[in-house]
């Protein structure tokens, strides 16, 4: 398989300005994403994990060019997506597509499946009507829909089938990278496996790179090659899947992994209970953002924020990472 780099992101940041108060408005900066760097090669899956509000979906919105980053940049197929002009952006749009979490909201209820699938072609290519129809029928077959579904409306489908339509739409333009924003978490567990298998089959067939966003660690373990764990807008641990799952070095990753349910009694780890709530990203704690909930906290954690550094084959941002090796 070809080892071409599809996307390189460098220190991506997204800050929002929020107004607070009813009458005397003060503005505060919300650091939704505070420095994420990664590369994904063709045919590989890069997973982003973390609890709600940690910046996973913000990352998805930046990579799909729905929003522009506050600072940092990323390259898709060697073209810089932040600094290049409108014309190059249009070409890049075709290369990055997205599959959303909620298959009920992501399909236009007034359009038939056929015209939903053909919309990307209509905008970006000059294929004729017949060619577009052929292409979308071929894609429907690929994702396991039958030709008679072509003229139906989205509300006639089940959640799993809708997600197949959403996947088909994302693949219509032959993208290099598909951002999957929790693509299976809205589906029944029985359907989740089908959807994941479909995604993996398509990855092999079309040599796709996935940016897979999830909070379900068992799903992530199944499909990823690399994992990035995020907490409060920052990556806390990042590396090969097995390195991280077998021997996590950040206390937050440890807590996440310990919280994954297991059927096998012996595989269960001792629960690590995190005390307290996730802090507000409007007012993050000083020093290490995780120190208030961390069992291994020492004085240095309160004072200085740990940098991401290389420890035992992965990037981790913890002052005490060596202790856990």
């Amino acid at each position, binding site marked *: 398989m070809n080892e071409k780099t599809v996307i390189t992101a460098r220190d991506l940041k997204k800050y929002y300005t929020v107004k607070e108060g009813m009458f005397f408005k003060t503005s505060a900066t919300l650091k939704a994403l505070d420095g994420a760097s990664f590369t994904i090669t063709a045919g590989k899956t890069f997973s982003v994990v973390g609890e709600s509000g940690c910046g996973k979906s913000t990352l998805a919105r930046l990579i799909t060019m729905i929003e522009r980053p506050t600072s940092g940049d990323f390259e898709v197929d060697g073209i810089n997506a932040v600094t290049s002009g409108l014309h190059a952006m249009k070409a890049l749009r075709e290369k990055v597509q*997205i599959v*959303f979490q909620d298959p009920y*909201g992501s399909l*236009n209820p*007034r359009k038939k499946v056929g015209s939903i699938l053909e919309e990307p072609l209509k*905008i*970006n290519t000059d294929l004729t009507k017949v060619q577009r129809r052929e292409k979308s029928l071929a894609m429907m077959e690929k994702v396991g829909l039958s030709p008679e579904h072509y003229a139906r409306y989205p*509300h006639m489908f*089940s959640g799993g089938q809708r997600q197949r339509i959403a996947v088909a*739409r994302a693949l219509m333009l032959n993208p290099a990278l598909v951002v999957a924003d929790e693509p299976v978490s809205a589906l029944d567990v029985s359907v989740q496996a089908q959807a994941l298998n479909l995604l993996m089959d398509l990855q092999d067939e079309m040599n796709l790179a996935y940016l897979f966003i999830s909070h379900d660690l068992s799903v992530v373990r199944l499909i990823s090659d690399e994992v990035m764990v995020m907490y409060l807008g920052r990556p806390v641990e990042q590396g090969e899947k097995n390195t991280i799952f077998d021997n996590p070095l950040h206390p937050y990753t440890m807590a996440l992994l310990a919280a994954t349910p297991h059927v096998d009694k012996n595989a269960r780890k001792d629960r690590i209970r995190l005390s307290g709530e996730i802090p507000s990203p409007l007012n993050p704690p000083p020093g290490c953002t995780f120190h208030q909930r961390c069992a291994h906290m020492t004085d240095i954690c309160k004072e200085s924020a740990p940098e991401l550094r290389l420890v035992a084959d992965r990037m981790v941002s913890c002052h005490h990472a060596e202790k856990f090796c």
Partner: protein
Amino acid sequence: MSETTAITQGNAAPPHPLKEFWKYFSENKGAVIGLYFIIFAIIVAVFANILAPYSPFEQYRDAILQPPIWMHGGSSKFFLGTDDVGRDILSRLIYGSRLSLFVGVIVVTISLAAGMILGVTSGYLGGYYEVIVMRAMDIILALPSLLLALAIVAILGPSLKNAIIAIAIVVLPHYVRLTRASVMAEKSKDYVTASKVCGSGPFRMMFAVLLPNCMAPLIVQATLGFSNAILDAAALGFLGMGAQPPTPEWGAMLANALQFIQRAWWVVTFPGLAILLTVLAFNLAGDGLRDALDPKMKR
């Protein structure tokens, strides 16, 4: 739309949308009666020259203020009697339906089209453009509608055409607000973002993606607005600012006959009844339409 159809997906072909619509619409008896009356009114308006026994302008000087056929002194010549200059009231009502429906159609078309464009653009683009458009609509809403219509007609000069323009301006804010509200609700949905990721431009987003999903409340508002337009046109006609005599417009007919209300009730009653029934029919049908199109009312 409903969860039940999602479960039966696959083999069973779903009912045609129009068939499904009719099923829900026909549950409301009032709406069906309203719809029948509207169809009746349209037929009367279209075939007015065949149905009307006389010309609406012809004056029969030997039969001034003749009562309807079933009253003492009525004749079979004039079914609903005659007015103060001897014109056949039935013929005038039949021709008047043309004007009323015409007013409704034109007012709704103008205000719906302008309202949709202003609403979609202001909801989608936002910023200063939205502020300007919405404050302008608030100003129109802040004035009593009939007073504003009167003022506009007074500036443009009294005629049916100017009355139509005035009414269209007065009802415009309802369409703008309604469209903007639905656009803002739809804008945050994932399918809109997906379309953006595919590269849709703003024009396509507004009119091909967002607008079709905002139509249901607009259709209902348009139906109800139809009756409002007829009523407002009649009110302007009554005040002498709409259709000018001898045009057989229902509101103007009421106004001209006001002085005979003691002596000859039929001159006033029949145009009034015609307005009442038409407005009622449109309101009932609009109500049924709202219920039929609202997914929350479906079982």
